């Protein structure tokens, strides 16, 4: 039983990491209709940015800032100079998917000569252990969960209570209508990519903290779990992504304890396939998200 309680503990941290990433990813899709397959790679690059800061003596928690900044800027540039021009040109959904895949490959392969093939890890002071009901977590792990909770509350607050949030929701629901109502959709979209890029960056650093090590190859692995969580929750739905992250995080950790740790991603994939077959619109469907063939 202890094994499963421990797995539950890992599950909570997994949920935290995945939720930060998945919320950013799903908002990119919801508001700009872009399945950003380069998301995992941006996470990886941000993770490395924090790594270099960390190597230079910066505390890893402070290094979240350069991580978030790099994520924000890189994501913004990606949209401004690659995605948006193609979308304006009228490229169809499939073309955009291919383009984002090409972008992800390019980013990964530009990083390779710079950072090398070997793995790296952060210097993290785990801090004292905290116990409760058989759950044992380090302070650092609790902090990760706290960061996730703060960010989720932040996203909720942003969407519900700020003008920007309302503008974002309007743009997501119907961009033409939003524009006609005077919402500067272009500016909203730019801001969305900055914010979600920052989330992506933080997620990259936190993911690095949660693993023993990471490398350029980590990017692809992140992407699978994130897509699974986002689709499970309902593509484009931030609250859905949080729920999706909760389910994926717990289930993958429990199955890792039950079967073997190497198959975490396989479990996430299996969930993804099940969702797509049984309920493709996800748990919290966006109205019309799954309308006619894309």
């Amino acid at each position, binding site marked *: 039983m202890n094994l499963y309680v421990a797995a539950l503990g890992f599950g909570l941290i997994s949920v935290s990491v995945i939720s930060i990433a998945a919320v950013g990813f799903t908002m990119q899709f919801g508001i700009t209709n872009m*399945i950003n*397959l380069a998301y995992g790679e941006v996470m990886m690059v941000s993770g490395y940015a924090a790594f270099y800061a960390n190597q230079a003596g910066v505390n890893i928690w402070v290094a979240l800032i350069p991580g978030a900044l790099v994520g924000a800027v890189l994501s913004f540039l990606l949209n401004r100079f*690659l995605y948006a*021009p*193609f979308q304006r*040109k*009228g*490229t169809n*959904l*499939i*073309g*955009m*998917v*291919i*383009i984002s*895949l*090409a*972008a992800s*490959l*390019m980013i*990964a*392969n*530009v990083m*390779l*000569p710079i950072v090398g*093939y070997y793995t790296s890890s952060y210097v993290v002071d785990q801090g004292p252990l905290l116990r409760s009901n058989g759950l044992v977590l380090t302070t650092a792990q609790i902090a990760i969960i706290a960061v996730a909770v703060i960010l989720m509350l932040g996203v909720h607050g942003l969407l519900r209570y700020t003008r920007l949030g309302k503008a974002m929701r309007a743009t997501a629901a119907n961009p033409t209508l939003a524009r006609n109502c005077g919402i500067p959709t272009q500016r909203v979209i730019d801001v969305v990519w900055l914010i979600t890029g920052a989330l992506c960056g933080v997620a990259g650093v936190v993911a690095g903290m949660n693993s023993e090590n990471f490398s350029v190859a980590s990017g*692809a692995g992140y992407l*699978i779990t994130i*897509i699974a969580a986002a*689709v499970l929750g309902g593509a484009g739905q931030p609250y859905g992504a949080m729920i999706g992250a909760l389910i994926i995080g717990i289930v993958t950790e429990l199955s890792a304890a039950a079967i073997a740790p*190497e*198959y975490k*991603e*396989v479990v996430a*994939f299996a969930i*993804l*396939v099940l969702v*797509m*077959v049984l309920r*493709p619109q996800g748990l919290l469907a966006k109205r019309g998200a*799954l309308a*006619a*063939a*894309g």
Partner: protein
Amino acid sequence: MNSYYAATLLVYAGVDIIACLALNLQFGVSGIVNFSFIVFQAIGAYTAAVLSMPPDTAYGGYQSYVGGFQLPFPIPWIGGALAGGLLAIPVGLVVLRKLRTDYQAISLLVLSVIANSVITNVRPFLNGAAGIAQVPGPFSDQVDPLSQSYQLLYVGLTIPCVLLVWLVASRIVNSPFGRSLRAMREHELAASALGKNPVQLKMTIFIVGGIIGGLSGAILVGFIAVVAPSIWLYPETIILFAAVIVGGRGNNLGAILGALLVPVGFEEATRLIPPTIGGWVPPPNLIPAMQWVAIGLLIIGFLWFRPQGVRPEQRRVFEGAPIREDSNDARPA
């Protein structure tokens, strides 16, 4: 030119051409974004391998794999092709029925990543990360595999396969069946409103593509004598996509051209890069990394400037058609 080099080039070209023709049928003609194509080539290779290898206990059992039936040519090649087709059935039934196209693409991409990961981790199945080595090629017990005659023999076996696949692809693309596939690609809903069954069309061409992809894998493994997960990582599919996009979507000549330009031409061109450039030695692995960056740029560049590819899909004019005015040379975006 060294004849070993020429033979290698020809066999690789043949394999790539066959693969691109298959992917073109799925993607260029029918609009199925099969991001898992490399898995079908891999299953063809693995199947051909385990059909032609001796049982894994031989040679001291340092490799661990299923099968080992030591079957002679052409059974391993036929088996590889069939395996590709058989794999296409469950994958197609799950992915191609109800999902919108971008979800289909992502599912297939994820499948590609997962399949590689599973094969790597489950060692007794297909020898895990090390893969299967010392795969005997066709007639390798009668002709010395290291000899020049064997190289010629292999080319002689590959070329008829290329021609056969080209014939099949041609007949499909230039037939009313091909026209239905293209209609489905253009507007699936309208095609079904005209009586076409999109699921049946997709499954059919997915399986056909799987068979041809499997064949390409079988041909490859017989030549290079090894198949391992590192050879079929998910980005390998992207090279083939780049080839089809660059060469020209939807038509076979375009696919062949793309195969010659991208996987073959590109590889050969980078081979010519000298080991030092003006005294500077590039770090190892810089060239392969830059190759990938170039592939990405190729895809993006072509999709921006010339999405129809070097050789676009040709306009089909039927016998007895009225003479067209010159001004009507426009094609849709």
